[in-house]
């Protein structure tokens, strides 16, 4: 079904996509670099891979004004010879998770021992499960990430392959508060009551002060209209709900603009 959509709305959706696309491009770049690094490595080890990951993510984590607060590589269990479970994840100075005063760029202290009470099997988490199944990039959240950033977060992950097998995920965390600061001025330009939602209909930010970030936008037919965003990776057409609200997908970000009234 093709719907005629306000040109401004289309434009705003594109601008939201173009705010997030550089983050996608950056992660794709990391994926390519990690794939190249492990392709030449018959016996991949954390000891040799970790410095490579650090060198990839550190510049962006330390760049002033960067949107991201955490980034790195998470290995498929058993892929690395010297570390069955492995998170090579770095946090920026802006990340407050268990930060000492004046903390700069630092590595996430992850529990990699499956016998420990604190151990969490990361392959059960959405940011691993979904890209593992679809074989492509996934935007998880907004959600409270109590394992990694300790804050309200969006995580973007993409699979890293080695000889046709899943070697792990590269990814990054963004604070929703920062994302809102960047995206809210953009959606305000629509002149309509307008909300940005994820593929589950959860509000990322809204021009309506009574629509809280994190709440589900409950509109008749919205969940069905968003189904293609949950499944497909290609761009989806706009749709109109029975209430008259228009859903405009933001490029291939899996986010959508909902214009009411």
């Amino acid at each position: 079904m093709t719907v005629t959509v306000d040109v401004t709305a289309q434009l705003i959706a594109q601008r939201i996509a173009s705010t997030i696309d550089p983050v996608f491009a950056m992660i794709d770049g990391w994926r390519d670099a990690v794939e190249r690094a492990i392709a030449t490595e018959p016996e991949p080890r954390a000891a040799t891979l970790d410095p490579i990951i650090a060198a990839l993510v550190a510049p962006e984590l330390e760049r002033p004004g960067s949107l991201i607060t955490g980034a790195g590589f998470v290995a498929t269990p058993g892929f690395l010879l010297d570390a069955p479970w492995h998170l090579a994840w770095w946090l920026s100075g802006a990340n407050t998770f268990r930060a000492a005063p004046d903390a700069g760029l630092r590595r996430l202290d992850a529990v990699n021992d499956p016998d420990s009470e604190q151990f969490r099997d990361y392959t059960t988490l959405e940011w691993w499960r979904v890209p593992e199944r679809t074989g492509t990039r996934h935007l998880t959240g907004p959600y409270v990430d109590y394992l990694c950033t300790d804050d309200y977060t969006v995580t973007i992950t993409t699979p890293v392959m080695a000889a046709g097998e899943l070697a792990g995920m590269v990814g990054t965390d963004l604070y929703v508060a920062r994302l809102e600061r960047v995206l809210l001025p953009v959606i305000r330009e629509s002149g309509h009551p307008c909300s940005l939602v994820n593929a589950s209909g959860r509000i990322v930010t809204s021009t309506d002060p009574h629509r809280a970030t994190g709440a589900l936008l409950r509109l008749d037919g919205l969940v069905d209209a968003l189904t293609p965003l949950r499944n497909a990776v290609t761009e989806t057409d706009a749709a109109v709900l029975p209430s008259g609200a228009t859903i405009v997908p933001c490029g291939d970000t899996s986010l959508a603009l909902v214009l009411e009234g």
Partner: protein
Amino acid sequence: MPQATGRSDATRAVVFSPLDAAGRAELVEQRLTDAIVAGVLRDGERLPSESELARSLGVAVVTAREALESLRDKGLVLTRRGRDGGSFVTHDRDATTRMVDERVRAQSRIELRDLSLHYAAIAGMAAEVAADRASDDDVQSLVEIDERADLTTPGGARRAVGRFQLEIAAVSQSPRLVHEELRLQAETGSLLWLCMREQDYRDRSRQARLEVIEAIRAVEPERARRVTTEHIASAVEWLIEEKVRLEASEPPGASGATGPPGASVAERTEGGAA
């Protein structure tokens, strides 16, 4: 006498050093004790080294060392020397039971009720908001946490409650509620859910969990909150009954003492004679 002057200055410096430093070892010790008793830190688990502990808790190395020594004295930690050495949690069931009983006795009813009220405020609100904000995936993960619950042991049942309540807080989408939930679990979890010693209460905790999931699925925030707070209230009622039982069986400070049976009772009848 320069040395003497120097010494006196150092002593003066201690007198006027920040008071914050005092009692820090006790705070570290209390936090680790709570974590061991609650089963957050498990039997045989290696604790971070003195310097790692000091760094992560933001205290001096001597403070961390002092706290570890007290834990060793209490029999909660064992230190091994050598290549695979370090400090390890020794989760002696009897020692833990004694320690928890002691805490139940030491805390007044007012404190226990206040603690449960504070926790109910956090957990109840989290459940209420979660019922409004849960996606289908969120409901599914709550169902999975419930299915993995081990109700055959008190520790298993307590951990299941902890996991479930933490997920509820996460589903509420509030970082602050998640923080508070984690903090209160570490601080009071072992005490509040002591009723899990009884199979009947473990089964009830499962019933409460299933009803909260139903309320969330049906988007009934009020019901999710009510079931959560009632569950917590029933736990504290059990706890206070247990306190009465403990006090009746062994008056505080009466270990080995053979005074007249009425004496300790009279002591505790506060202002009864006035």
